[in-house]
């Protein structure tokens, strides 16, 4: 394995429709474990992930396994071993479940393996029974499963996962959390998540973003145990906290 950090982001800025929404963000993702990106709505979490992949206009440095990739096209970056679970599921509504998954298959090193396929089958048995259904007619939660499955099919170097538990039933939230925990044993994950229980279950480190800037980085525990910090950075009030 190369250096300790699989992903390094230095001075990354992102622009959408001519407006800078992420300003000079720097952080790194170690070669193991889960790094969670937290923040309130609209602060730029999603945009940061998309900037790493080159899906939005960006400037700054992005290093994958120590190699600069910020000049490359998205598909090249992905083929270097980046799995992406987008925020709004973004399944191909007009394609069937099977076609959605087939599209995610990658050949060659870092591509799809039998083990990964087995893992996906085990995690989401529902998808196999719905293989011929058009993804657009799936329930919200089922779409989320397709989206996760597409990323988990390949032997990636890193996963970028944006709010994976959104809209999932509590039982599935638990299962997805377990799946990600299992995946995290072999591949590092950069995770955006609002559900603090899931963060608590998975995250080793956190990066907190506000107004397009990194305002806090550190071990996950430090943040979650500090009600004051939670209140200040994420606006989580004591009473909501109590609901946990």
């Amino acid at each position: 394995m190369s250096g300790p950090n699989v992903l390094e982001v230095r001075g990354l800025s992102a622009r959408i429709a001519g407006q800078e929404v992420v300003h000079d963000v720097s952080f790194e993702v170690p070669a193991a474990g889960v790094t969670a990106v937290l923040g309130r709505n609209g602060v730029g979490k999603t945009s940061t992930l998309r900037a790493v992949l080159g899906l939005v206009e960006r400037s700054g440095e992005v290093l994958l396994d120590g190699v600069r990739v910020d000049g490359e096209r998205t598909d090249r970056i992905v083929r270097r071993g980046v799995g992406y679970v987008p925020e709004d599921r973004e399944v191909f509504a007009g394609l069937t479940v099977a076609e959605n998954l087939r599209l995610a298959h990658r050949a060659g090193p870092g591509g799809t393996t039998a083990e990964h396929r087995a893992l996906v089958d085990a995690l989401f048995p529902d998808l196999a029974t719905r293989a011929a259904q058009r993804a657009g007619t799936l329930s919200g939660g089922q779409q989320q499963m397709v989206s996760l499955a597409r990323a988990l099919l390949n032997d990636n170097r890193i996963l970028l996962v944006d709010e994976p538990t959104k809209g999932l039933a509590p039982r599935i939230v638990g299962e997805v959390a377990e799946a990600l925990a299992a995946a995290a044993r072999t591949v590092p994950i950069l995770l955006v998540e609002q559900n603090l229980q899931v963060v608590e279950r998975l995250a080793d480190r956190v990066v907190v973003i506000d107004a397009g800037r990194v305002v806090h980085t550190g071990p996950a525990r430090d943040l979650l145990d500090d009600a004051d910090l939670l209140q200040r950075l994420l606006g989580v009030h004591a009473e909501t906290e109590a609901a946990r």
Partner: protein
Amino acid sequence: MNRTRTLLGALGTLVLLACLPLLALPVPGVLPGYTYEPGSLQLLALCWLTAALALSYHLLFGLAGLMSFGHALYFAAGTYGLAIVLDRTDVPLLPAAALVLVGGIALAFVVGAVSLRVTGISFAMVTLAFAQAGNVLVRRDQGDLTGGEEGLALATAGVPDALVGVVNTRNLYWLALAVLVLVYLVVLWIERSRAGHMAAAVRENEVRVRIIGGRPYLTKLVVFVLAASLATVVGMAYLLLQSGASPATSTADFTLTLLVMVVLGGVGSRWGAVVGAVLYTVLDQRLAELAHSDAVAGLPAVLRIPLSEPMFLLGTCFILVVIFLPGGLAGAAERLAARRRPVPEGAAA
């Protein structure tokens, strides 16, 4: 304050345009002579009518997002309708025009009611199909009504003398300008009205409109019929200006031309539609002169052949605008203005 200024500017422009037939201004390269000459007035009048027609198309496409390939049908309904009524009956001009307008509205209502049952490219195709049917009928000259590909001349008996003959071109010019102003105001009115806002909402998201209790189908039908009736009005004015109806104005190509104008000017912009239409008309009418000029004739074949084909130049211009000027001329103007203005406060958090 700002609004009064734009209003005054618009009024000033209008007065200037209205006075053109009384002035002797040369616009070399654009007009064939001085502004008061019939040739120039004819070209300008043609510009105004085309602009009015483009505005009616803007109502459909820009406001309601309805890409019709058959808008020419209602324009042709105006030209042919009026030509036939004047040719076959003794009804005087104004009642005849009213009659044709009612007919145009009825036609639009029926065709709209059917074609609006589908959306997107399918809608474009159904409207195309209906317009094509109209075109076939016009060209086949059933019952000797339309004159086939030879067109139908204006029966001048029922038309006031002031609108006949080259000496009266300036009257026709004023008529065309009046039609443009009328159509512009109607379009502005519709856009600003509640129905207009609802139409924009339908363009954006039909399901959402239904969820808030709106009726997308009805909204679209209203806009469709309004746009079509404006086209019918313009068609009638066109008949008077050209002293005849020609089957070319009933073709799908003609609708495509409207689309080209609206896009040249900038989809969604009223001024864009006007400017696009005027530009297109001037280029279409005058590029031929450039193409046959001595300057072109002296060039080597690789340059001469393309340059001597007006449609080639126009098509190429159009492609360049689409690729390099997103939002058309109106979009470009806006960007230019924005660059001059200081950047507004309040970048999103």
